[in-house]
């Protein structure tokens, strides 16, 4: 399944990294398409491509809904012979007061049942979240090609 990728004038590649600015729901689509393309180049295939793209979609939407703007950084990673993809979702939004609560399934502050963060964690192999109220949130997650 191939899409005609939307024209991405703002997506910047710095060396191996891809930065996708997030400020609208259209950017969520761009982020996951870029993520999917990069994942494929790294060697992901089949169901895991959809898994990675879905996880990116979830965290990108989190940015749009709670922080209004932020960025997604996609980077290939190589560790001990294993190839993988790192996804960082950064924002300078309100921050999450209770991370444990936010990571519980079914928790959401707006727009009904959101699966965003706990869902993304389930999809990826490694997941880390740092958040400070008033400063912002950074989610870092990794998936390995297997």
């Amino acid at each position: 399944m191939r899409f005609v990728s939307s024209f991405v004038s703002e997506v910047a590649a710095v060396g191996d990294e891809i930065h996708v600015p997030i400020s609208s729901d259209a950017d969520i689509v761009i982020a996951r398409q870029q993520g999917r393309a990069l994942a494929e180049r790294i060697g992901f295939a089949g169901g895991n491509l959809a898994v990675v793209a879905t996880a990116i979609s979830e965290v990108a939407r989190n940015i749009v809904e709670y922080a209004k703007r932020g960025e997604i950084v996609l980077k290939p990673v190589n560790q001990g012979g294993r190839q993988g993809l790192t996804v960082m979702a950064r924002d300078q939004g309100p921050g999450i007061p209770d991370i444990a609560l936010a990571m519980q399934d079914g928790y959401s502050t707006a727009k009904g049942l959101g699966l965003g963060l706990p869902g993304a964690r389930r999809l990826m192999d490694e997941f880390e979240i740092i958040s400070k109220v008033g400063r912002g949130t950074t989610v870092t997650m990794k998936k390995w090609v297997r």
Partner: protein
Amino acid sequence: MLVPILKQRDFLIATIQSALTDDDLLQLRDDLAERVGRCRSRGVIVDVTVLDVMDSFAARTLRALAHMVGLRGARTVIVGIQPEVAFAMVQLGLTLGDVETALDLEEGIELLQKRTKRSAHRGG
């Protein structure tokens, strides 16, 4: 209207043709609900064959779509969820709730016909 909606007798068939943003999905939901009312359709098929990702928002919106369409007396069937997408969805923990699914358009129409048969006879 981003997603073409075709009328096939009593049914409406919405075939998604490219990646949809959140707003596009909401638009589809509202368009279909409106059309069902206007055309008095008894069934709706949403063809998602082309989607390579179904995230929590998409699943929520499709459930809401089915609910709204149901309030207007019609059934909804989602068709064309691809293997990789289904795989990712269950890992994420997504469910479409009570919304029925079928393999493809042909199966979806057959299912809708089965589901709407009885009510046709009841009406006389």
